[in-house]
């Protein structure tokens, strides 16, 4: 049992890429963004209710182009400004109303700019870490974790930023869990493996709430007591610099550390020349002609 003084902070990062969700709404009308947000709200409410004392949940939603994030801390100690209309615990009704309102505002403000359809995963994770750190520095001893609900595909351009964020999270002892709706994400698999979180790709989107409550609601200490899906085998193979193929054995330039799948005498990144010593040719021994007597 968690002690009375322990604060557990859950940050839920929901991918609300409007393009993906719009297409999803057309593909599968029974599971739309509204349903997804409902499930997320259920999860958030459950987390707040799990332990009476001081569990905070913050939801950050990220979207491309406008770089608008929505984040809010929900603390049981805050005085609720609004009463609840249906007798619900005030904190929950405040949370739900706030989330719904913000999402509506966010969507209303969205404008199409350009062709990019990627979600800013790295940026939003970084923002979450900053919020966590801010709360930590406020003097409270906290255990925090981030739950990422991902809809769209990975963006290869964010790789470096993403890896930096992952290592920063590892240093801060922040777990990153991932719940992936559509296609497997190698980046998130790595993030979960490195920080010690759980990665799950959901077969049925409509049962999202069930998966969230079953797998992602318990915190790190409680997870060791439960039987949860086993960790995924992560493909840590490097990609060669020339073709971007994933290779197991390759050639590494000793000057710039770039990886190649084939040997080439000049490294294309740093232009250093290399020579592989060939095996020595064994000279055939000259037979001495015996002088005739």
């Amino acid at each position, binding site marked *: 049992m968690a002690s009375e003084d322990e604060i557990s902070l859950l940050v839920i990062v929901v991918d609300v890429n409007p*393009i993906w969700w719009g297409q999803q709404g057309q593909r599968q009308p029974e599971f739309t963004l*509204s349903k997804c947000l*409902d499930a997320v709200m259920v999860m958030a409410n459950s987390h707040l209710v799990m332990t009476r004392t001081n569990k905070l949940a913050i939801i950050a939603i990220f979207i491309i182009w406008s770089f608008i994030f929505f984040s809010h801390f929900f603390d049981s100690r805050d005085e609720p400004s609004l009463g609840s209309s249906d007798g619900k615990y005030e904190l929950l009704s405040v949370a739900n109303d706030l989330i719904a309102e913000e999402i509506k505002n966010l969507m209303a403000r*969205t404008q199409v700019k350009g062709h990019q359809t990627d979600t800013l995963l790295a940026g939003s994770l970084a923002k979450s870490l900053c919020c966590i750190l801010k709360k930590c520095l406020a003097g409270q001893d906290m255990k925090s974790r981030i739950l990422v609900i991902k809809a769209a595909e990975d963006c290869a351009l964010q790789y470096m930023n993403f890896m930096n964020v992952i290592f920063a999270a590892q240093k801060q002892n922040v777990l990153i869990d991932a719940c992936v709706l559509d296609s497997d994400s190698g980046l998130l698999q790595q993030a979960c493996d490195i920080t010690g979180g759980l990665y799950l790709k959901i077969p049925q989107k409509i049962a999202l709430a069930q998966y969230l409550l079953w797998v992602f609601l318990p915190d790190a200490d409680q997870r060791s007591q439960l039987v949860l899906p086993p960790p995924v085998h992560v493909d840590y193979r490097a990609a060669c610099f020339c073709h971007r193929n994933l290779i197991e054995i390759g050639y590494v330039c000793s000057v710039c550390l770039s990886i190649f799948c084939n040997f080439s005498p000049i490294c294309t990144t740093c232009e250093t020349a290399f020579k592989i010593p060939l095996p020595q040719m064994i000279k055939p021994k000259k037979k001495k002609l015996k002088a005739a007597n």
Partner: protein
Amino acid sequence: MAALSEEVLLVVKKVRQRKQDGTLYLMTERIAWGPEGKDRFTVSHLYADIRCQKISPEGKAKIQLQLVLHTGESTTFHFANESTAMKDRDAAKDLLQQLLPKFKKKANKELEEKNRMLQEDPVLFQLYKDLVVSQVISAEEFWANRLKLSSTDHFSSNNNKQEVGISAAFLADIRPQTDGCNGLRYNLTTDIIESIFRTYPAVKQKYAENVPHNLTEKDFWTRFFQSHYFHRDRINTGLQDLFSECAKQDEKGLKSMVVQGVKNPMVDLLYGNSLHIACPSTSNSSKTVKENSNSAIIKRFNHHSAMVLAAGLRKMDTSSDQASETSSTDGNSRDSDTFQPPIKKVKLQEAIEYEDFQNETGPKTIALKLKKFDRYSHGPVPLQSHHYSTSQDIISSVSCIQEEMSCYKPCLTQVMSSSAASSAITALSPGGALMQTGAHQTVSQLVPVDIQSELKHLYTAAGELLRHFWSCFPVNTPFLEEKVVKMQSNLERFQSTKLHPFQGKIQREYLSSNLISHLEEMIQAAYNKFHAWQMRRMMKKT
């Protein structure tokens, strides 16, 4: 009785051991004692077993010699011959003193070293148990590689032992005590004697000349302390004193040191004539008696300090330069002129320059020039073909979602149907669709811990044997040939005595996985290599 081949070095009669009369025999490799009238030895100790010997102090009535063994037990011999007991005991003691060191170091250092290594490293201990105790390989082979390393360390540390310095106050430390009846007792230890010899080589010379033919050690030192050489007022009383020559030598030495001057220009007060020190004019004959004695003492002090310093420097010099043996003992040694300029320069440089303040002239480095940075930032995510969305698609999706969200109201009571929830639960339960990969990872949980540790020991032992085996290739020398054959037989023995019983044990416990398959592969690879080598050898011979 003693073996015929043993040479008896000393026989002492009338030695009692445990209140029985008998005879003590000292032989080349052991010391033995037999009771009176009997033929055989009741007590026999090899010199290698003796740790140290002790003698009873001088004043005691019983004259005894005690031998303490390495095992801790001790044997005491009482020399009971009325007239010659002391001499006998001393003779025995001296002989033992010479013999013991020869045998001491050889046997036990090795055993101690081995025991220490086994105790410090439990893995090594386990390996030893597995391989040597169960007779897969012999103890010599086991220690062959390991002891080599430790013995070389030992030797190098011995050579670098530092020299013990001489305390400047060693003469004062002797601290004579009054004997009660107008005599003085001087306690001399070997350290003090050594210091005296090193500082005053003249005394050492006298000692070598006179002891032990003319004087005993005790007499020599008594004379030394009685002589005026030692005492304050060095008035040369006459030629009977042994040490009057020493006094004259010292005077000469002191004068030559003064003449030679100071080598290090940094501490030379007279350098460059910047200081004029009032030198006592030797021509002035009107000296008071008090001045005389004062100057004598000051001269003695200076000489003593100079000798101590010279002794310290001498040690350093002799160790580095054999040729300086020619240096005489009073310090007027080498030709100082040829050495002066470089020393001065070196000393000056040392004084002015500090390493830390020098300019950094590190190794020249070449800057890294990269042509294509973006390759690093692209991760191992392979370039997949995107779903390319046309701008029309984008716009329509966005408008669709905006429409949806504008009328969004959270409806938390109808988030999902119960059927969907229960199917999700089934998938997450053990054995469900999402839990499949878990089964593979529990081999470490299936196999009990003791079998796991035994497997680990087997791996360590097999690794050790295989390492010896593979290090023999390429087989160049006949020694390696023998070793290869020996290792092959060792591997076979290991397989039959250790691996097969282990496998049998596992099978009896119904563990399905074949835990030793990898070990067998490794050993099979070694066998194949051995057979191939054997074939090649036979073909070469024919």
